[in-house]
């Protein structure tokens, strides 16, 4: 599974757009990029997943350039409740029972009023 690198922490203010970038230089052809959000003492929560270009859902957007060596999670108009750790994961999510997730240390996003 490809190794990922993310900033350890980021600060933002309420109402701002936040972009968290993850680098994954060794991504393989069959790998997908997945982002999870985790609050203290809770299990991670799936945010978004993509393979290439742009993916958007009701909570976030994921931008993946053509070479797929990096990806950017975009959170529009963050609020205090978005303060959490965000994990970027890369792996082949479709190969049968091979679905263990490799988490890094994640990015701690702190949103201030």
């Amino acid at each position, binding site marked *: 599974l490809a190794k990922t690198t993310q900033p350890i922490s980021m600060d933002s203010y309420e109402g701002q757009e936040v972009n968290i970038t993850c680098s994954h230089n060794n991504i393989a052809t069959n790998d*997908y990029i*997945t982002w999870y959000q985790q609050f203290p*003492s*809770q*299990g*991670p*929560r*799936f945010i978004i*997943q993509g393979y290439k270009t742009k993916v958007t859902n009701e909570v976030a957007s994921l931008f993946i350039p053509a070479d797929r060596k990096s990806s950017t999670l975009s959170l529009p108009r963050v609020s205090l409740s978005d303060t959490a750790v965000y*994990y970027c994961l890369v792996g082949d*999510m*479709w190969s*049968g*029972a*091979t*679905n*263990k*997730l*490799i*988490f*890094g*240390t*994640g990015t701690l996003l702190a949103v201030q009023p």
Partner: protein
Amino acid sequence: DAGVTQSPTHLIKTRGQQVTLRCSPKSGHDTVSWYQQALGQGPQFIFQYYEEEERQRGNFPDRFSGHQFPNYSSELNVNALLLGDSALYLCASRRIAGGSYEQYFGPGTRLTVT
């Protein structure tokens, strides 16, 4: 529709003791994975169960073992507890059939070893 549930919520054990943690997957899910999350770290994969068999295993010693029951629920057993086993233990479930890629995590069990 209940999500992934885990019990107990918190647990305190002494070094050398044994512990069993329990997980019920989300309705319709057939695969359960267990993760250990130390304070300040990301979750680390322990193992995965599908069709009542261990399918994949992370870098954890044999002291960590598990079981999956016919109703898809699962147990994680840890023998000869060490202080370093203190962590949040997370259970995640998914449905293999249909190629679903999303794993749902439970709230975790906080294990403290003294």
